[in-house]
């Protein structure tokens, strides 16, 4: 028996711990403070660069604390989990009592609270009985407020008319808290089920395969993406103005969708979203190599494609075009598009040969028997698409919407109760109008003013 009691109180204590607003204040501030770290230390950079910057001892400590990838670290996630636990427990606990307030069997009004409220307005109406005034006022108040009830207190001929508005707005704050849960849930769904990658599609071609970000793996889509045209336009100053890819989605050989893909205007097909992300140039099938005999200056031209091997004049060696780079860095200088080739002699070691498209005499440096260059490269644009699937996005967007609506309700609407009291006096009736609300004292005061002005008009007519 005793141990069970202890168990219960331990559970109670945990429950109370998570139900406290103090904890949430601590957690929110801790999250704010720790989030700053990741802006002071650039995240996910090259380890060698970190080591250079911080030195070995500091680097080891930071690494152990996951400071180089802190937003995914265990301790940051733990803080988020604590916040969620805090939020859920707190909301559940409060919702029980709020629910009773929002859906009462019978609304009750405490007269004294109205009598003591600030902003109460009183005035006197001559030659009028509370009962008669009630006849005029009650219908009006019923048209403006809900849950109207009429009482005759202290049996002195007085009349109290209560009404209220916006009981349900007490739920606004739960909507805000629920939206925070939705955001976290959406982010979790995205990190579990989502993927992201990059796909380059040359003009006129279709692709299915794309490479996943941060891994060496690739993945295949259920459909093909064809790029019909890519166009980049510039302002007169040379600034880029627009990147546009005309793409077609091909399923089983049939075009099912066409779209002009632009930055800021992605296309979603079967849950997969494609973004205009980069572009570049890629050489076409064929190019021409020019072989100039160093001794004589005689030129030979041959057509070749990437991956192909040709025999050099004289048959003493073979040339293979192995690869192409959009922008090749040679000793730190970008020499633009270049082909990488390999010259294999009959005997002896292979030599790498660099063939920059824009510098045809580059190979003279090698001082070989032949100076090699390329020409007639048939460049085509390719469009670089970012490929993403994130099933969490709709959940996150729902969270966004609920958060805005919830904040609006919480901040700018309130549960407001009004009370109009009619007290008999010697020469007439004293009218007092008062209001109390969950928030927005100033708003309530002006509502009281408005209601009393309206009542004054109504009562002066009769």
């Amino acid at each position, binding site marked *: 028996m005793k141990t069970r009691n202890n168990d219960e109180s331990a559970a109670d204590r945990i429950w109370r711990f998570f139900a406290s*607003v*103090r904890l*949430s*204040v601590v957690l*929110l*501030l801790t*999250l*704010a403070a720790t*989030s*700053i770290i*990741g*802006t*002071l*230390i*650039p*995240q996910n*950079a*090259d380890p060698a*660069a970190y080591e*250079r*910057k911080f030195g070995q001892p500091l680097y080891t400590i930071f690494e152990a604390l996951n400071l180089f990838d802190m*937003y995914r670290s265990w301790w940051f996630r733990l803080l988020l989990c604590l916040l969620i636990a805090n939020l859920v427990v707190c909301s559940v606990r409060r919702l029980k009592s709020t629910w009773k307030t929002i859906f009462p069997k019978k609304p009750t009004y405490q007269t004294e609270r109205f009598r003591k409220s600030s902003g109460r307005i009183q005035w006197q109406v001559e030659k009028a009985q509370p009962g008669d005034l009630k006849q005029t006022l009650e219908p009006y108040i019923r048209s403006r407020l809900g849950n109207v009830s009429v009482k005759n207190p202290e049996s002195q001929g007085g009349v109290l008319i209560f009404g209220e508005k916006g009981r349900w707005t007490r739920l606004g704050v739960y909507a805000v808290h629920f939206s925070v849960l939705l955001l976290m849930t959406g*982010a979790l769904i995205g990190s579990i089920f989502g993927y*992201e990658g990059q796909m380059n599609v040359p003009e006129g071609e279709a692709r299915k395969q794309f490479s996943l970000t941060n891994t060496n793996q690739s993945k295949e889509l259920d459909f093909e993406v064809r790029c019909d045209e890519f166009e980049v336009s510039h*302002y007169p*100053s040379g*600034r*880029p*103005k*627009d*990147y546009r890819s005309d793409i077609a989605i091909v399923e089983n050989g049939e075009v099912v969708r066409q779209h002009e893909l*632009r*930055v*800021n*205007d*992605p296309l979603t097909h079967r849950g997969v*979203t494609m*973004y*205009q*992300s980069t572009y570049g140039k890629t050489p076409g099938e064929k190019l021409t190599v020019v072989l100039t005999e160093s001794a004589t200056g005689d030129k030979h031209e041959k057509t070749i494609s990437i991956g192909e091997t040709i025999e050099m004049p004289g048959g003493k060696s073979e040339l293979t075009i192995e690869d192409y780079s959009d922008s090749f860095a040679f000793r730190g200088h970008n020499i633009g598009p270049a082909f990488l080739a390999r010259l294999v002699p009959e005997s002896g070691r292979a030599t790498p040969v660099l063939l920059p498209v824009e510098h045809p005499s580059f190979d003279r440096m090698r001082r070989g028997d032949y100076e090699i260059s390329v020409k007639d490269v048939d460049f085509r644009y390719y469009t670089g698409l*970012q490929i*993403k699937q994130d099933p969490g*996005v709709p959940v*996150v*967007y729902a969270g*966004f919407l609920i*958060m*805005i609506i919830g*904040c*609006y309700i*919480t*901040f*700018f609407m309130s549960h407001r109760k009004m009370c109009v009291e009619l007290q008999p006096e010697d020469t007439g009736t004293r009218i007092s109008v008062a209001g109390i609300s969950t928030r927005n*004292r*100033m708003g309530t005061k002006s509502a009281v003013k408005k209601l009393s002005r309206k009542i004054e008009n109504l009562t002066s007519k009769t």
Partner: protein
Amino acid sequence: MPNSEFIISVTTFTYGLALVFYIAGWIFKKETPGRLGTTAMIAAGAGNTAGFFLRWAETYEMGYSYVPLSNLYESLVFFSLCIAVIYLFIEFKYKVRTIGIFASLCAFLSVAYASLPSMDSGIQPLIPALQSNWLIAHVITCFIGYAAFAIACGISIMYLGKSAAADPDTGTAGRIPDTETLDDLTHQMVTFGFLFLSIGIITGAIWAEQAWGRYWGWDPKETWSLVTWLIYATLLHARFMRGWTGKKIAVLSCVGFAAVLFTYFGVNLLPGLHSYL
């Protein structure tokens, strides 16, 4: 026709004038300088509005046609405009001019900074990533939020001054509204700012999702806006904690505005990856 930069210079001067009048009205307890302050503030707000729309028209003349909210210069001009409009609304609603000192100071500093010779105020066409309606919504809502927080900070400073004053009910301190009203006003401004900052972060996230395929990426600017948001969320909750007086809340409101300023100006000073790689 004068160009927008000239109008903004005149506006800067007028905000400065409003500041002087508001201070004079507060110190000398006179109605006239206070009224002149209001007049100057209205004139400056009108000039600021004209400058904003004129620049918009200028982008059309240059053939770029964009809403002028795309660089630091343009955002500063819009920031001061938001401060002026929100402040004038409060002044008319609650009839308090002392807040005008801080509001006109902030608006003045903002456009004065924009008018510095070193500021690049050229009209540059938008690169593709910036051509987005979500971005326009993002900038507008963020700056409305920032402006509300600026005014909340001013009110909080007045609160702290008033509660620290030896004799809070007489002299210059006596002309500050009572602490209860200040506390209430701070809270109203913070809730207003919080709503708009939330919408600002959300529209920014939607823009990022459309332009870069991610709604959140923990880049320094995003992260700092979240830090700001968390500080104000803390403030909103602090009211429900026992022992938290208006003083602590006023301090939080100042800390929150410091975070706003850092999000706005400071993030560019942070180490980017490229600075040492």
